[in-house]
């Protein structure tokens, strides 16, 4: 119900736009509030209605209620239904957001996570009455251990960056235990932003390692920077360029040689499952993003989970509590428990047992695929990426947005839009925005930083060949359009709920909550 005139000619609303989304003027739920309306009915008062001030001193009570919306249930449903259509989502179209592994989210996982035995299990339930949950965690730990090639797993971290922090705190504890205090952590310049941010939070200084001409770690530079102040090297392999670092064994040797730990950022694990394992490469600590490789839905920015797998020498320091299995005596069933008695542990990173609901989904995913299925999924992810790259190369992207490092990628690849900017005046951002009009989510842009005008493409294994073809065609069409008239891309998108937004203004005068009353 808008305030402007409606289109009246069929041309006026050409229906073939890719993103048929809700385009009303945004109205917040607070703006829909009308005094006196309500959704929830109060629960019946079955105890004496003592005045509150008789139970809690008045000065500790609120003077006025929080200004929450006053709105009926049907209107809440409509509100969120309508704004939901202002989101692009994975179940509607291709989402090749590099580094994010936007694979299919099986609804089976949602179903099993919602079983009351999982969903309504209180985290402080006596372990003897939560045997199923503990066994599930134990089984997931075992699966991740096998996949990572490292013997011990803690499920506690809530996401990748939380796992990274755990990793550096473990490293600190490990060194402290040996009477060492180290100050620096190495990260390659292709590293994801969470890596250096974590280093700082963990109280270390970041030292950047250069990238060589094959897109891998510059081993000489590494060797030069690796000294006894280096606590750890954080690495992604395949790295954020989608390239596998063949020198990993040598790299591990160098880092271990100076007494540092080797941390594996598992964001790209989806490339290698069943083919090679971080533990076998020499990594001491690995985090796994269950919301990437293991199909937990992203939820528009979480929840996820970032379990870590570690080697024997790191194990004593793992977060508390750990799920343990105690074999049954005389043939009785094994019992599962939470072990708090871990004197060298770094302690807790959060409350309770971690994002258990995510564990259920990921374990269901592992059970669904099995070892062979996971291995094949990685193969298909790599096949899809290579195919998409080949297809893009056949078209105009070959010249305007060539691949940054001319090697066979693994599950993702990074193009450089520098020629497009130079020759057509069209930036990577413009290409990304124009893709929105074609009904595609754009790739990750401007990351990794070392690639000029980077476009980072990760198709994942769950996409069809036809979808990859269509995406390659769209990119080609956009570049063809730009050859004719770069302003088309420069001003895109056109069909989305809103067009380019003024982020500068948003930063300058932040309006970050609804002004009320």
């Amino acid at each position, binding site marked *: 119900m808008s305030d402007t005139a409606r289109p009246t000619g069929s041309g006026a609303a050409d229906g073939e736009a890719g993103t048929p989304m809700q385009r009303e003027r*945004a109205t917040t739920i607070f703006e829909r509030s009308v005094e006196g309306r309500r*959704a929830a009915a109060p629960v019946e008062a079955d105890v*004496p209605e003592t005045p509150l001030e008789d139970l809690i001193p008045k000065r500790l*009570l*609120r003077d006025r209620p*929080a200004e*929450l919306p006053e709105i009926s*249930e049907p209107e809440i449903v409509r509100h*969120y239904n309508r*704004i*939901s259509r*202002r989101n692009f*989502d*994975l179940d509607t179209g291709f*989402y090749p*957001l590099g580094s994010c592994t936007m694979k*299919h989210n099986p609804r*089976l996982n949602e179903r*099993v996570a919602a079983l009351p035995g*999982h*969903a309504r*299990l*209180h985290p*402080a339930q*006596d372990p003897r009455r939560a045997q*199923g949950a503990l066994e*599930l965690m134990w089984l997931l730990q075992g*699966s991740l251990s096998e996949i990572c090639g490292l013997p011990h797993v803690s499920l506690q971290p*809530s*996401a990748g960056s939380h796992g990274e922090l755990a990793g550096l705190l473990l490293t600190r504890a490990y060194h402290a235990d040996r009477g060492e205090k180290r100050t620096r952590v190495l990260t390659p310049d292709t590293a994801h932003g969470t890596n*250096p*941010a974590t*280093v700082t939070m963990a109280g270390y200084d970041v030292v950047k390692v250069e990238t060589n001409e094959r897109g891998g770690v510059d081993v000489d530079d590494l060797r030069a920077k690796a000294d006894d102040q280096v606590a750890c090297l954080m690495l992604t392999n395949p790295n954020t360029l989608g390239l*596998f670092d*063949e020198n990993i064994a040598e790299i591990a040797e160098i880092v271990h040689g100076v007494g540092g730990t080797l941390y594996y950022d598992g964001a790209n694990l989806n490339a*290698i499952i069943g083919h*090679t*394992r971080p533990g076998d490469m020499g990594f001491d600590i690995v985090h796994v993003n269950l919301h990437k490789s293991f199909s937990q839905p*992203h*939820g*528009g*920015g*979480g929840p996820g989970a970032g379990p870590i797998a570690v080697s024997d020498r790191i194990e004593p320091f793992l977060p508390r509590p750990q799920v343990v299995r*105690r074999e049954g005596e005389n043939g009785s069933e094994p019992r599962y428990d939470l072990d708090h008695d871990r004197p060298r542990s770094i*302690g*807790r990173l*959060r*409350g309770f047992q971690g994002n*258990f*609901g995510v564990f259920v989904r990921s374990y269901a995913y592992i059970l669904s695929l099995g070892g*062979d299925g996971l291995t094949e*999924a990685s193969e298909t992810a790599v096949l899809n990426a*290579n195919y998409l790259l080949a297809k893009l190369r056949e078209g105009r992207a070959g010249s305007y947005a060539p691949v940054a490092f001319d090697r066979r990628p693994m599950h993702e690849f990074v193009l450089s839009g520098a020629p497009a900017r130079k020759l057509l005046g069209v930036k990577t951002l413009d290409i990304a925005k124009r893709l929105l009009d074609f009904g595609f989510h754009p790739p990750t842009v401007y990351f990794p930083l070392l690639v000029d005008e980077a476009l980072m493409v990760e198709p994942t294994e*769950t996409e069809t060949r036809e979808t990859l073809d269509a995406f390659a065609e769209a990119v080609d069409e956009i570049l063809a359009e730009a050859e004719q008239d770069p302003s088309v891309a420069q001003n895109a998108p056109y069909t989305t709920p809103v*067009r380019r*937004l*003024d*982020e500068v203004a948003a930063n300058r005068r932040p*309006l970050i*909550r609804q002004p009320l009353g």
Partner: protein
Amino acid sequence: MSRYTSATDEDRARMLEAIGAASVDELFEDIPEYLRLGRALELPGGLSEPEVYERLRALAGRNTDAESEVSFLGAGMYDNYVPAIVDAITSRSEFLTPYTPYQPEISQGGLQAMFEFQTGMSELTGLPVSNAALYEGPSAVASAAYLALGATGRTKLVASRGLHPHSRESLVTYGAGFGSELAEVPLADGVTDAAGLAAAIDDQTAAVFLQQPNFLGAVEDVEALGAAAKENGALVVVACDPIALSVLKPPGEAGADVAVGEGQPLGNRLDYGGPSFGFFCVTEEHLRRMPGRIAGETTDVDGRRGFVLTLQTREQHIRREKATHNICTAQALNALAGIIHLSWLGKRGFVELGELLVRRTAYARETLAAIDGVELLHDAPVVREFALRLDAPVERVLDRCAAEGIGAGYALGIEYPEYEDGLLVALSERRDRADIDRLADALGRAIGVTRAAAPEPVGADAGGGRVHE
């Protein structure tokens, strides 16, 4: 073909041809031979959907959940009722499946929900600035410490012993990285010892941590306790139960600089501890030190109202080692559940819920305290949780109650050796008077029997409780 993929043999052949590779294996050739796994992964599975369902159902059936027992467990997470519309909305693929809204033009739904969430949390806490949520409660407390350390340039943290043990432990864990020290202030009569607190604070104190209500359920006088911190230039951080903020003075009005907390009771199920969300609100002053995503309002090139992730120069993907925090993937869907729940309760309903809890809790406290062998651990005012002392071994009593289908509460001795005989009992609006009376009966019986019986060893499988299969 693996599960959920589409590539048929023919697809593979055609794709390999386009790539110019002879086999899929060739695509993996950058992995040195000696690093290849060279065997199949040893994992269970490759099961059909009904079989996976059955396995998971069987595991779930071995848990005693709040659907299969009458549960009075709390201690940081609560069995509040999650309205059906929360599930209906959050399960829409449009909310469930997108990534963090990096492309605002096609993420307005999620961004607007964040903006609404921020508004709601700001209203609850009485602080003007909220982010779009962190992971969960205790790590949000630790994140508050990081902010305080940065804001003050100091290194000491002081926490009340009424702060959730998991939060206190997180402060220590993170503190190893932050380079901070933690001092703890004891409780007296159930609440933070004001004199002890004042004594623990000095001009090197970055922040003081309180919990509202505290772990024993007692309502703290945040304003009074915070005074000493203020005098010394330390920040006052209050971890709160958001449901209690329906009736309690908002921390922002009681002088808190930072209010954080576990968001689970707002629209999120128990899920054995997660996923939920952590909220994080501050005064204007600390806006640019905030951790996490923040949605802000702006306009597009055509003047249309829109929302974006704002102040991103705080964040890791822009600022890298200079970021205010390392968080990336957070708990957006859980925060959405939170704002839906709050909207559903609404201005009046939220207060009514708080009042109901206070009254039922008063009833429960009185009823249970009247039982022979039970006394109050403290008599400070409470909202929805309170602590008792039992004149019988707590674990044994809990087992007996469990056998009658009642989760009688949380054994305080697990985290507080000084309250070895303590039982923490929590309510949600799902526990009515009849449930409380049932608990009273069961508890009375269990104490009676346990006191009478000779000490019996509790075997490993004294699980008890009804378990659905």
